């Protein structure tokens, strides 16, 4: 219990003094995760919606696989991305290993199935409701996807925030592909793992509280910006 209190004190100290290293790794955490989130959402939201309205032969299989991939072990994703990006691997010439880009790639792979699955679930229900209307208006597929995505935007926000939550707290994959290099690829989670390894629990917990606070701030500000949960609009 004492460690938790010391962790709170350490977190407060780090934030109040605006510790340069803390600001640096926090911004990098945000940069990596936000980029991954934008890329993953750009793939997953149209994909999930498309799966909801399109009927084809192997649809069930595709959906089952997508749902299963929600549980992808990050360490395995990290290892595979490492092998692909390694100088000895197929994409080695790009020189992306141990850069934030490699971390973004790994996170996109981890969170895309999650966002796509939640999107699909929400869009399926919405499609049941909109089906007759959109068909009778003689819309094409692109217009249907656009209508569903727009009217389901609040649920899609939840889907994206779930992806954000998984990505910002992820450590296994980005440790392998990023390498936890100081001033280059160190982010909050890998810094926490490092400080735990040194037995400095107070600093590790302090960073942990900063991470939790960051997730809260991001979620609150997105809700505030998109004006959800307000009277008469939810």
């Amino acid at each position, binding site marked *: 219990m004492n460690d938790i209190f010391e962790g709170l004190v350490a977190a407060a100290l780090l934030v109040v003094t605006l510790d340069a290293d803390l600001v640096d790794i926090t911004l990098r955490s945000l940069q990596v995760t936000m*980029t991954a989130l934008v*890329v993953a959402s*750009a*793939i997953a939201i149209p994909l999930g919606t498309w799966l909801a309205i399109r009927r084809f032969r192997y649809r069930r299989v595709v959906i089952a696989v997508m749902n299963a991939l929600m549980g992808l072990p990050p360490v395995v994703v990290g290892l595979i991305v490492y092998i692909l990006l*390694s*100088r*000895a*691997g197929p994409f*080695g010439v*790009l*020189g*992306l*290993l*141990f*850069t*934030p*880009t490699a971390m*973004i*790639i790994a996170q996109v792979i981890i969170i895309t199935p999650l966002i796509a699955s939640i999107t699909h679930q929400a869009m399926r229900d919405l499609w049941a409701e909109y089906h007759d209307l959109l068909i009778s208006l003689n819309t094409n597929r692109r217009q249907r996807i656009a209508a569903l995505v727009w009217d389901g935007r609040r649920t899609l926000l939840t889907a994206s925030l779930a992806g954000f939550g998984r990505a910002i707290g992820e450590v296994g994959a980005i440790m392998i592909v990023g*390498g*936890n*290099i*100081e001033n*280059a690829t160190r982010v909050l989670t890998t810094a926490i793992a*490092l400080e*735990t*390894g*040194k*037995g*400095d*629990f107070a600093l590790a917990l302090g960073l942990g509280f900063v991470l939790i606070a960051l997730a809260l701030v991001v979620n609150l500000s997105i809700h505030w910006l998109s004006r959800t949960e307000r009277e008469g609009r939810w």
Partner: protein
Amino acid sequence: MIRVVLAVLALGLSGWMALAEDFKLAVTTSFHNSGLSDVLLPAIAEDTGLNVQLLVVGTGQALKLGEAGDVDAILVHSRAAEEAFLEAGHGTHRRGIMYNDFVIIGPASDPADVSKAETAAAALMAISTAQVPFVSRGDDSGTHKKELSLWAAAGLDPAALGGWYRPVGAGMGASLNTAAGMNAYILSDRASWLNFGNTADLTLVYAGDPVLFNQYAYLPVHPDKNAAIKHEAALRLEAWLVSDRAKALINEYKVGGETLFVFNAK
């Protein structure tokens, strides 16, 4: 779309990285946890202009990164593995830089009377006779390899030991945390131990046997692997590591009043 995003990102990153000459060095957790790197890196940047980026991993993974050509050089401590690495043509040569020593850490009450042992092998024998918990790194690191060689010297097979022998498959710090939680014995390098914050009821119970000597060596990765390996920079860093400035910094580095490393490059 994704390709465009990635290309833009990669371009931005490569532009930003061109500012300083980055050099990737894979080092062992024990070297980094000692805190010595925080002293050496700024001095290296000052004297050689190299921005050394440390990849802190176990010796096994460090050798693997060198083998794949993903780092420019490695600094590790496991002689047999290093020689196999050179034998396979993954590195150009091996240069001893400094040494520290391994110590046996255990509960302050010392239930196995390890502190009375004459040799490191006898100390492990005492632990095995008393059947008290012992945490092993179990991660193929230099420290783990040293521990296995000590069990072999004691005439014991770690695989056949009882449930009190607990390989955790983790780095030095994480393993020390586990040992602290279980109040178990553990083999650690002195530097990691002195820098370790969460000691709980553990204390240093045995040190001093010459077999516990822990040589750190620097191995540049062979430049034939790929065009991105900075061999010239690797040689420049080696020249600095064996210089008088490095000697002074290494020999004078102290934690809690104790010297951690002894410079012995020739």
